[in-house]
């Protein structure tokens, strides 16, 4: 048989009836494939993040070993590992999420993808993949801390796993925010830096300003406020807020400033769901309209 005959047989055209379902079935299939593909693509990042987390755990372990008196309670020991945790979470979310939308435009990969899949499905698939990876890396952190706690105290406080639950919920919120930033900006690096600036500074500045206007409303619109529950959960019921009158004792000013410490469990759940939905819908709408700069 000649080569061309072989080739012809091999490349008999696909019978169109065999093409997989249109409609809903296809959407789910495409999302599933995207989760797998995006997962594969980001697997190295997962390994890297787990290593970074482990370094942090080791750092706190060293600090604990050097301390004269280890905490008496297992919970306090766990908490000692969570001091930087909200920062670590921001890094995790930004690391996994910074590129989620903008990469298609920065590298023009959108030109390959968008004719093949609806952007909404692509976004869902990627979000699921990255959220899963980010959650895994946070869980590994907790697991390592749990292991150390078990070695030292022969017990692992259950409350720790509840705290992890809050952390994962909060992660969803932060990742939604990073997704929106990834839609708004034109480079992966700027999306990451801008996210970090917002999460570390801008929200805090707004909180300060609010405090000094003597506002007493709970700052449920401040994204980073929700992160407080992760550690506060170990000492429930936590103080929700504190009224301070820093100038009172000096008799200079009669002003009280309310500083909010922790959201309630209900406030957290409802707040995060509403907040992240708004962020993600916003990100999707931007993504759908966004075009590559030529």
């Amino acid at each position, binding site marked *: 048989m000649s080569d061309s005959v072989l080739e012809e047989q091999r490349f008999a055209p696909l019978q169109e009836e065999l093409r*997989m379902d249109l409609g809903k079935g296809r959407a789910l*299939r*495409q999302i599933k*494939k995207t989760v797998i*593909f995006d997962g594969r693509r980001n697997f190295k990042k997962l390994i890297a993040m787990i290593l970074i987390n482990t370094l942090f755990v080791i750092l706190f372990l060293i600090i604990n070993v050097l301390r004269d008196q280890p905490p008496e309670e297992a919970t306090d020991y766990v908490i000692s590992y969570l001091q930087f945790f909200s920062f670590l979470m921001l890094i995790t979310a930004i690391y996994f999420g910074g590129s989620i939308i903008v990469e298609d435009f920065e590298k023009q990969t959108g030109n*390959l993808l968008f*004719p*093949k899949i609806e952007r909404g499905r692509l976004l869902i698939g990627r979000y699921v993949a990255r959220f899963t990876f980010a959650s895994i890396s946070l869980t590994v952190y907790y697991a390592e801390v749990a292991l150390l706690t078990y070695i030292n105290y022969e017990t692992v406080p259950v409350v720790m796993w509840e705290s992890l639950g809050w952390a994962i919920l909060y992660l969803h919120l932060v990742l939604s925010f990073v997704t929106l930033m990834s839609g708004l900006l034109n480079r992966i690096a700027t999306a990451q830096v801008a996210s970090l600036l917002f999460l570390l500074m801008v929200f805090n500045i707004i909180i300060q300003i609010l405090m000094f206007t003597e506002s007493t409303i709970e700052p449920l619109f401040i994204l980073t406020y929700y992160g407080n529950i992760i550690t506060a959960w170990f000492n429930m019921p936590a103080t929700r807020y504190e009224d301070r009158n820093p100038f009172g004792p000096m008799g200079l000013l009669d002003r009280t400033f309310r500083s909010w410490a922790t959201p309630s469990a209900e406030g957290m759940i409802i707040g995060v769901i509403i907040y992240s939905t708004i962020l993600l819908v916003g990100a999707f709408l931007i993504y759908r309209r966004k075009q590559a700069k*030529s």
Partner: protein
Amino acid sequence: MTENNFTENTIVVRFSNLTRRFGKFTAVSSLNLQIHEGEIVGLLGPNGAGKSTTMKMMAYLIRPTEGDIFIRHNGTLERLTNTNKDYLLDRFGFLIENPAFYDNVTPRQILSYFAELRGYPSKLTHKRVEDVVTMMGLSEWIDKKISTFSKGMRQKIGILSTIVHDPQIVVLDEPSTGLDPKAQVEIREFLLKLKKMGKTIFISSHLLYEISEVADTVAILNHGQLIACDTVETLEAKAKKSIIQLELFPNPNGQLQEVTTHLTQLVSPLTGLESQKNQVRYNGNTRAFEILFDGNPEHQVQILKTLTTNNFNVSDFSVPRAGLLEDLYLNLIQKGENDQNE
């Protein structure tokens, strides 16, 4: 292959008054064009002509400002909209502009993903991916990370990503721009293989030869407007001008400028062309002078006589066929420029 037995029923894509504006700027202006089943249509035009914009509208990456795109589905031409694009575009493969590739994956991974996104049956995907990679001659690389690939190899994977789900219509935007000559030839051969399989191909380029070597029909686009659209043969016939290719011995390397001016003075009155501009030029690639004339053999003879009486050592004096189209292309584009300026 093209016996032009095209009818209304063989149209697979039709652009109807397709227009795209960016603000006040019109990138594509009332484009009317049809693509028939099994045909290779070349979209030829200089940078900024609106080629990519046209193809992006086809891929539904951007919406037309006015006009429509019709695509054949189950025997009828359907207007491309947001609701039907998912299945209408199943039969298409697109490679538009120069998308970077995901570095951290292998051709097998990315091609499987693309095939399945477009509904290629899961069970057959594995074999299909291996087949197309082999067809492109990259089977050794199928499981290597794309980050290690050369530019030409990436582009080949890009082309494979457009055909891996076995579409009927393949749309390629400047597929070999920026590649080395070897890769360019390989890609051209690949396109001809696809044509043999009966695929319809819509390819753009700013280089004439990239198009004329493969296309049955050439559509020339300039400033968003279609300025010519016909078979390669008809376009050549339409070209009233011809080119004389002239080689001198020894080649006057050092004094190209002077020789060109001298030739222009001698030859201009004899070419039968009105415009006296740029009638003689030196082509560095062929190392030959090119003289434009009206194609009249009598003028050709006169020019040769004049050259020999003026002591030019003519080592080659010919009228190559490919030159005609090249000149037509330049001519049409230049005409477009003038129209714009008026």
